[in-house]
């Protein structure tokens, strides 16, 4: 005997059967008739050359921009609605294929750029020598191993806390967001948060173009450094981070200084000191020599001046010598100046005695 069910029971039974058969399924196709209702419900069709299925999801589950014509993969559960309409309840949607990934990337990039999330003014500097660092990565990944090896080779004494997360796939963005939240809520904040992921395909790296993740990185209280993929790979998380390294190895180089370089610089500094001391001593020596030279010159000048003065005094004295006066034809008269007074008259060649017979005052 065939089972006889009410319409509601039939719908419930059908949904039970569908849930059992397809608890979750990934379907790839092209988006058509994409629309958002009441600012929270998303409706679209997913189709290929052979058919089309209606899809429904909540807006907050939409992590990347989607538009008609894009190729996507939806993670969904099939469901029969109470109005008898078959649809897919979508839990996650991601662009598929290079063209769609690029399109989605560009759409989100333009939107976030418009909001100023990538502005240079937002960028904060990293500490020169960090003491406490937080790393978000997959410790099993090659990129993480490269990062740790180079950090350990370059520097020491850093406390590094690592949040182990998956760095690709649908779960990656949420795990990284939780790790960011964890480090940002620490009482003793790290000085920098480093997000590390090695190279991969565009699809592998698409987790780093997730809108909520990009916003979480932008909102981080702690400065962020990214080392994601290879040099040519550019994700939106890279663009929003405070500092973007080209690779995980490069992130290690930007994070800590090179101890070998510091040792070399320190030795150069020590070596540079001695020439400075020598230079100072030479300068002092030069100063002493100059002072001596100046003193010597001053003494010499004084001696010359004194000699000149003596010479002039001598000349003057010579001019006043009575012999010289007599030589010019004058005579020296000594004796009493009165009539009848005896006088002595001395010339250059003779001494004569005489008597004054006439005296008159001038």
């Amino acid at each position: 005997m065939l089972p006889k069910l009410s319409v509601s029971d039939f719908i419930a039974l059908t949904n039970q059967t569908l849930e059992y058969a397809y608890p979750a399924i990934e379907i790839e196709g092209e988006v058509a008739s994409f629309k958002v209702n009441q600012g929270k419900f998303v409706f679209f069709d997913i189709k290929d050359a052979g058919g089309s299925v209606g899809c429904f999801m909540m807006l907050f589950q939409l992590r990347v921009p989607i538009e008609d014509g894009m190729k996507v993969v939806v993670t969904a559960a099939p469901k029969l609605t109470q109005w008898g309409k078959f649809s897919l309840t979508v839990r996650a949607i991601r662009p598929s294929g290079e063209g769609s990934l690029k399109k989605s990337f560009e759409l989100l990039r333009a939107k976030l750029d418009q909001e100023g999330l990538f502005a240079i003014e937002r960028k904060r500097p990293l500490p020169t020598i960090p003491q406490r660092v937080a790393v978000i990565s997959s410790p099993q990944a090659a990129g993480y191993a490269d990062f740790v090896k180079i950090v350990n080779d370059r520097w020491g004494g850093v406390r590094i806390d690592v949040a182990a997360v998956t760095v690709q796939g649908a779960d990656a963005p949420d795990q990284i967001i939780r790790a960011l939240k964890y480090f940002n809520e620490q009482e003793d904040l790290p000085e920098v948060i480093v997000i590390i992921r090695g190279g991969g395909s565009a699809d592998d790296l698409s987790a780093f173009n997730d809108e909520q993740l990009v916003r979480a990185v932008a909102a981080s209280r702690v400065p962020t450094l990214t080392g994601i993929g290879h040099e040519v790979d550019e994700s939106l998380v890279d663009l929003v981070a405070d500092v973007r390294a080209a690779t995980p190895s490069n992130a290690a180089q930007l994070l800590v200084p090179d101890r070998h370089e510091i040792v070399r610089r320190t030795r150069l500094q020590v070596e540079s000191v001695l020439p400075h001391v020598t230079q100072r001593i030479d300068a002092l020596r030069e100063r002493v020599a100059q002072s001596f030279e100046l003193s010597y010159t001053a003494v010499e000048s004084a001696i010359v001046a004194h000699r000149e003065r003596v010479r002039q005094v001598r000349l003057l004295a010579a001019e006043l010598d009575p012999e010289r006066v007599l030589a010019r034809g004058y005579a020296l008269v000594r004796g009493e100046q009165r009539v009848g007074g005896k006088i002595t008259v001395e010339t250059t060649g003779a001494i004569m005695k005489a008597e004054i017979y006439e005296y008159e005052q001038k």
Partner: protein
Amino acid sequence: MSKNDPTIQDKLTQLDELVAWFRGDEFALEQAKTKLEAVKKLATAIEDDLSSVENEITIVKQSFASDAD
């Protein structure tokens, strides 16, 4: 290393200051020998620190797989 011990950054800054003294106006020949010895001692300490200190890497125990954790 206690919290009050100078960090490598502190020591590097101190070294920079000492070396700058030799180039600055405050240079005095009478103090140069003492300062030079301090530079050498500090440089040796920095090299020792850099060659011996290792990073301390800890994997956080918390799981980030879901909100419930």
